[in-house]
């Protein structure tokens, strides 16, 4: 006749509580399994098979053949794959810093006390976020045509001769511009919101001390938004590595974007133009691994920075 101790009753109570946690998690876990885990496993399987025709006629149908890592070797040996990665690197190298810097700049501008039309500007800056990238690319595609674009015409009126963006190296500008147009708003709002959590007294005290807005921005606001900046940086990096819709849409408007311009376009081409799902799966996996590694790197950097800045604040 042992009366249950408090400890065992707590444990059994906890177990029944935890049952509810599992119930809550179950639908999400099931869908996660179906939509994430299984496709990943499936594409790993696909990446070690290939469809080969076994002779027997000119147009003999193809069969699935186990090929170990031949697909991986094939993708990694393909110059168009590396060319695509290189372009992605150039694109990201420009896009990410510009995106982050402009978002911060706009957020700071919005946060200035004497600024007029704040709400209107905030809304206008955020508006493009709601426009699908396919449509954004279409609109900008027209705006890039010198003969009919108001931008070029205005430039002419001022005696400026804007270069055409749809050829040569300036194609990066064309793509980056479309992406920035759609993406700055979201990141600006994140930084701006972070700025709102800065205690008003801190800023007011700084103003009374005679600091001008630049100094305040530099020494008070910027350090405060470092976490938000890292966040937007991370989003931008992940987004940059996944760039697809904008160049795909723009490729219909210019000769300068070919079917392997960025890695994901090459994946798409393999899967849907060449009916080579195995090669597409292989390249997808390589890209996914690279992206995860890069994201972990960015998160690692962020941990380092925040740790250092929190140490600095403590000192």
């Amino acid at each position: 006749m042992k009366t249950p101790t408090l400890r065992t009753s707590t444990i059994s109570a906890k177990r029944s509580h935890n049952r509810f946690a599992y119930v809550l998690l179950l639908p999400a876990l099931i869908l996660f399994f179906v939509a994430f885990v299984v496709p990943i496993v499936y594409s790993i399987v696909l990446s070690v098979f290939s469809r080969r025709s076994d002779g027997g006629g000119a147009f003999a149908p193809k069969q699935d053949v186990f090929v170990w890592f031949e697909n991986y070797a094939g993708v990694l040996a393909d110059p168009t794959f590396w060319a695509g990665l290189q372009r992605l690197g150039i694109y990201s190298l420009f896009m990410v810093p510009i995106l982050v810097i402009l978002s911060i700049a706009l957020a700071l501008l919005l946060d200035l006390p004497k600024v007029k039309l704040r709400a209107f500007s905030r809304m206008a800056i955020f508006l493009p976020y709601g426009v699908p990238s396919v449509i954004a690319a279409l609109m900008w595609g027209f705006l890039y045509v010198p003969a009919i674009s108001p931008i070029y015409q205005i430039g002419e009126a001022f005696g400026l001769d804007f270069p055409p963006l749809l050829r040569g190296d300036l194609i990066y500008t064309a793509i980056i511009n479309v992406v920035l147009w759609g993406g700055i708003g979201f990141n600006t709002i994140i930084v701006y919101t972070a700025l709102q959590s800065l205690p008003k007294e801190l800023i007011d005290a700084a103003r009374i001390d005679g600091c001008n807005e630049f100094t305040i921005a530099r020494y008070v606001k910027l350090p405060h938004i470092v976490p938000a900046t890292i966040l937007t940086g991370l989003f931008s990096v992940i987004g940059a590595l996944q760039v697809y819709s904008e160049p795909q849409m723009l490729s219909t408007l210019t000769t300068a974007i070919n079917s392997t311009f960025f890695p994901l376009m090459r994946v798409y081409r393999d899967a849907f133009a060449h009916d080579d799902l195995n090669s597409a799966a292989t390249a997808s996996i390589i890209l996914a691994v690279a992206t995860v590694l890069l994201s972990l790197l960015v998160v690692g950097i962020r941990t380092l920075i925040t740790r250092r800045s929190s140490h600095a604040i403590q000192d």
Partner: protein
Amino acid sequence: MRKNTRLGVAAIAALALTLSACSASGGDDGDTGEAGGVVNLDFWAWGSNIDKRVDVWNAANPDIQVEISAPASGVDMPVQVLSAVRAGSGPDMAQSEFTQLPTYVSAGVLADLESDRDEIVDKFAPEVIDTVTFDDTIFGIPQDLGPALLIYRDDTFEANGYEPPATWDEFRALAEQVRTLDGDKYLLNVSSLDADLLMGLSLQNGAKWWDYSDGDWEVNIDDDATQEVLDYWQGMVEDDLVSTYQTNSPEHIEATASGRILANISGAWAPGPLLNSYPDTVGLWAASQIPQWDASDPKVFARGGSANVVLENSEHKAEAIKFLYWLNASDEGAEGLVEVNKFTAATHGQNLDRAAPALMPDDDTYWPSATEAASHLVNVQWGPNTQVAFTAITDELGDAIEGTVAWDKVLPTVQKVVSDDLAK
């Protein structure tokens, strides 16, 4: 809050039930195959106005009903069809561009039409039958054809005393003259999307890119005939004798609409799209035969055009063949296609008297020109990986035009890509 949650959950449940009902009926591709009942055929086709022809058939054939749907996949349709077929939910029949046929055939998903070979062969010219023949087996019924024509601004030509060029040398000379005109005019525009033009022009020059002999494929893209064609166009691009806007981009359309680009080499289907993009230019265009290397031995290639195929998975292949034969090969079908402004692959349709296209309302010579062009079509031998070649050329050509790749690297690169892919 509780009420809202319950309502929300109920709404989602209702929606989910509705959707599963939708997808159950939507996923019912193929047919229901009731014995002695109505046969329902699924037809995936994008060609404009084909649905009108389908309506005519359905009205006259209550026992074989065709449902046509426009697949939302544009140029990437083949693989979507293939995936649907492999998953067991593909259509009975599909439309396919000629250059896409090899993809279907290599995947082994098409039913051959040998049972009706004699009737089919009777209705088309031999070169046209070649385009749907693989391994000496017929795999599709050609629908429309795009024999290449030179479509040019007649008003500008007349104003400057130009004659349509008969040879490529004359073409180049004319291009030079056009450059001297006011207003930064060009005779033609080329872009990476003209890979099929390069294919065709090489054919015209006698190239044979794929050859099957002794149980093995031989790839000959990097040969003299193709190189000669490429050299010619390299010259045109580098000497600024042609503009290089992306085909049908806003830049390109603006330049053509303002009269800066005087001509294009298109298939016989050109007047429809031209009218759509340049409605203000009605009556200003004319057509002539494309330039030749050797004026005494005219050869013409096709740009565009499509055929209809039957999928092996179909449970009603006989009915499908019957419908497709009526649609594309029969005299009645050919006449119907002509009515919806197609240039038919069927010989009967090509020989019909028909009204001039809306773009050139006073030009009674247009359709006869198209027929004449069709009579000089060269034989085509497709390889199993035509799409791979296609995208490779598109990429390399684009890079060469942009100047990021040397012109003399184009063909070797394409050759390597295509033969490597075949060797797999």
